[in-house]
C-alpha cells in the first residue's frame, strides 16, 4: 500500500549459530518503508532470533543487517542509535514492574533521546491516549491486564519515534478475550503507515494487514508472498502442513 | 617464632573442639526445639518462640557474658570453656531450630496427611516421613551454620578462654606485632572455614541435582 521502493531494513545472508546449532541460515529479507511483513513458522524455526538480530539484541554470526542506513552491530552509541530507531514489542511485554505506565514510556525519551521531562511526559500521555489507556498513566504494570500491559509496551516502543516496529508474538501470551484490543492498536498503527515486522499466528490479522507473509522453517525462509497466495495456495509442502496445523486453532480468536 | 606458632596451634585446637562441642549441643537443642514446635502445636510455640526470638534478637557476645558472669553471680561459676560451650550451644540451638523448623514446614502438607491417613502416629510421620525429606535442605544449611559457629567461637576471647583469637592476643601482648599475628590468625581461620565453604557448595549442588532440595519438592 504505502510502501515505497526504498528498503528501510535489509538483512543480507544473516546466519546465526548458537554453539553448534545453526538457528538462522543465510536469511535475506528486505523490508520497504511503510511495508508490513508478517513472519510465520513452526516453533524453533528462528523467528524470534531473526527479529532479535534486526535490533542487535543478538549479534549475527555472519551476514549483515542495515536499518535506515545504519549498520546493526558495533557497540555503544552506534548500537544505541540503531536500537532506538527500531521499536520492539515482546511476547511477555517486559514492562519495568517498578515504574508506572507513564514512567515506562518516558524512560527512553528522557535517558536516550535527551528530552526534557515535561516534553517526554507530554509525548507519553499522547501515546497512552493513542493506545486507549489515558486513565492508566499512574498505574503500575502489576495492576494492568495483559492486554493493557502490551499496549503500554507498544506505546513505550513508539515513544522512541522508531522507523520500524518489531513485534514478537505480541498476543500469544494473552487470554483470548484480550487479544483483540492489542491487534486493534497494531491495525491502527499499520493504517498510519508504520513499517512493521510482525511474528504472529493470528491468521485473520495477518491476512488483513500484511503486504507480505514470510514462512520460516529450520532457519530459512521457505516461502514468501502476499497473504492471499500464502494462505490459500501455498507452494511448499512444509507451508501446507504448518498452515493446516495452525488453522484449527487461530480461527477461534478471530471469530469473536 | 616457632614457639608462637605452636601456641597458635594449641589455640586452634581449642577453637575446633569448642566449635564441634557447641555444634553438637546446639544441634541437640535445635532439634528438640524444632520438633517440639512442629509436634507440640500452638501452646508450645507460645512459650518457645519468644525464647528463640530473644536469643536470635540479641548479640552472642551479650549471651556469652550473661552465661559467664551470670553463673558466677548465681554462685555456680562456670569455667570459661563450659560457659562458652553453654552460651554458644544456646545461640546455635536457636538458629538451628529455625533452620530445621523451616525445612520441616517446607515439606508439602500432603506428605503428613498421607502418613496420618494410613494410621501412622504424628510422631512417626514427622520422624519417619517428613524429616528424611527435609534433610537435603537441613544438611547444607546446618553445615553453613557450622562455619559461622567456628567464627563465632572467637568471641569466647572475652571470657579469657585460650582459643585461637585469645592466643593471638597473648602473643601480641608479648611481641607487640599485632599486624602479622592477626594476619596469620586470619589465615588459620580461613584454612579452617574455606574448605568447609567449598564443601557446602558442593553438597548443596549435589542434593539439588538429585532433585531433593526444597525447590524440587
Amino acid at each position, binding site marked *: 500500500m504505502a510502501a515505497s521502493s526504498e528498503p528501510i531494513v535489509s538483512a543480507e545472508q544473516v546466519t546465526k549459530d548458537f554453539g553448534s546449532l545453526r538457528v538462522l541460515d543465510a536469511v535475506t529479507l528486505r523490508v520497504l518503508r511503510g511495508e508490513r511483513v508478517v513472519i510465520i513458522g513452526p516453533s524453533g524455526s528462528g523467528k524470534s532470533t531473526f527479529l532479535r538480530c534486526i535490533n*542487535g*539484541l543478538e549479534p549475527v554470526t555472519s551476514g549483515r543487517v542495515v536499518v535506515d542506513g545504519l549498520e546493526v552491530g558495533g557497540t555503544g552509541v552506534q*548500537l*544505541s542509535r540503531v*536500537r*532506538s530507531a*527500531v*521499536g*520492539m514489542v*515482546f511476547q511477555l511485554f*517486559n*514492562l*519495568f*514492574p*517498578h515504574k508506572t505506565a507513564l514512567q515506562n514510556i518516558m*524512560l*527512553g525519551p528522557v*535517558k*536516550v533521546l535527551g528530552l526534557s521531562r515535561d516534553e517526554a511526559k507530554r509525548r507519553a500521555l499522547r501515546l497512552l491516549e493513542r493506545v486507549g489507556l489515558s486513565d492508566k498513566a499512574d498505574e*503500575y*504494570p*502489576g*495492576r494492568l491486564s495483559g492486554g493493557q500491559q502490551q499496549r503500554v509496551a507498544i506505546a*513505550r*516502543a513508539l*515513544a522512541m519515534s522508531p522507523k520500524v516496529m518489531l513485534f514478537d508474538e505480541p498476543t500469544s501470551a494473552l487470554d483470548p478475550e484480550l487479544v483483540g484490543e492489542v491487534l486493534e492498536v497494531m491495525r491502527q498503527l499499520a493504517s498510519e503507515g508504520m513499517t512493521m515486522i510482525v511474528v504472529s499466528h493470528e491468521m485473520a490479522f495477518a491476512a488483513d494487514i500484511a503486504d507480505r507473509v514470510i514462512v520460516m522453517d529450520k532457519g530459512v525462509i521457505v516461502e514468501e508472498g502476499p497473504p492471499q497466495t500464502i494462505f490459500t495456495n501455498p507452494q511448499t509442502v512444509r507451508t501446507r502442513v504448518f498452515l493446516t496445523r495452525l488453522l484449527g486453532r487461530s480461527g477461534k480468536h478471530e471469530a469473536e | 617464632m616457632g614457639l608462637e606458632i605452636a601456641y597458635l596451634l594449641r589455640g586452634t585446637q581449642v577453637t575446633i573442639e569448642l566449635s564441634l562441642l557447641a555444634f553438637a549441643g546446639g544441634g541437640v537443642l535445635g532439634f528438640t526445639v524444632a520438633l517440639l514446635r512442629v509436634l507440640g502445636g500452638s501452646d508450645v510455640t507460645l512459650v518457645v518462640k519468644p525464647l528463640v*526470638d*530473644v536469643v*536470635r*534478637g*540479641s*548479640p*552472642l*557476645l*551479650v*549471651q556469652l*557474658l*550473661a552465661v559467664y*558472669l*551470670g553463673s558466677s*553471680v*548465681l554462685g555456680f561459676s562456670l569455667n570459661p570453656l563450659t560457659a562458652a560451650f553453654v552460651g554458644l550451644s544456646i545461640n546455635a540451638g536457636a538458629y538451628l531450630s529455625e533452620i530445621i523448623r523451616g525445612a520441616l514446614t517446607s515439606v508439602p502438607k500432603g506428605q503428613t496427611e498421607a502418613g496420618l491417613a494410613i494410621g501412622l502416629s504424628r510422631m512417626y510421620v514427622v520422624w519417619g516421613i517428613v524429616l528424611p525429606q527435609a534433610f537435603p535442605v537441613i544438611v547444607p544449611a546446618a553445615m553453613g551454620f557450622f*562455619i559461622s559457629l567456628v*567464627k*563465632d567461637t*572467637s*568471641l569466647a*576471647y572475652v571470657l579469657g578462654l585460650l582459643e585461637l*583469637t585469645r592466643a*593471638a592476643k597473648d602473643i601480641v601482648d608479648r611481641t607487640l606485632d*599485632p*599486624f602479622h599475628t*592477626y*594476619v596469620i590468625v*586470619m589465615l588459620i*581461620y*580461613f584454612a579452617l*572455614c*574455606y574448605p568447609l*565453604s567449598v564443601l557446602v557448595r558442593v553438597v548443596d549442588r549435589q542434593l539439588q541435582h538429585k532433585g531433593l532440595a526444597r525447590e524440587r519438592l
Partner: protein
Amino acid sequence: MIELVIAHIGEFFSGFKITLVIALGAMLGGSLLGVLTAIFRLSRVGPLRMLSLSYIELIRNTPGLVQLLLVYLGLPEFGIRFSPLGATILALTINNGAYLAEIFRAGLQSVPKGQLEAAAAIGLPRTATLIEVVLPQALLAIYPSLTNQFIQTVLFSSIGALIGTVELTQVALILNTQTYRTIEILAALSLMYVGISAVIASASHRLGVRLERRYH
C-alpha cells in the same frame, strides 16, 4: 531492673545512638562496597572477578572480631590510626560489604533477562540500565535479606565494646562494674537489642506490605 535502666537512661541512650551510628554506617558503606563487589563479581573482566571473589571469601571465612582487631591494632603499625569508633565502623563496613555483595549478586541475578532486553531495545546505555532498571528491582527482591543483614549488623556491632567503643553493650558493661547488678543489666541489655531487632523487622515488614500493594 526498670528503675536501674531509668536511672541510667542517658547513658543507655547515648550508647544506643553509637550502636545505631555503627550499624547504619556499616550498612551504608557496606552497601556501596557490596554493590561494587557484586558488579565486579559478575563482570566479564577476569581480574575484577578474582579481586571481588578473593575479598568475599577472605572476609566470609574469617571472624569479624579478628578483622576488627587487625584494623584497630594492626593498621597503626603502618601509621594508620583510628579511634575505637572509627575502627569499629570501618571493620564492620568491610565485613558487611562481603556479605552484602553476595546478597546484591543474588538480587542482580534475580532480575529477569527480559528486563535487560527491554532496556536494550529502547537503546538505554549500560549505566542507565543498571540504575533505572536493574538495581531497583534487585533491591525489591532482596530487601528481606537486607533487613536481616541490618539486624545482624546491629547485633554484631556489640564487638565494638571489646576495643572500647562506648556503644550499647559497653555502656552496660561499664554500668556493671559500677553496680554489680549483672543479671539485671545483661537482661535489660538483651531486651534492648531484642527491641531494636523487632522494630527493624516490623518496619521492614510494613514497608514490604506497602511495596507489594503498590506494585501488584
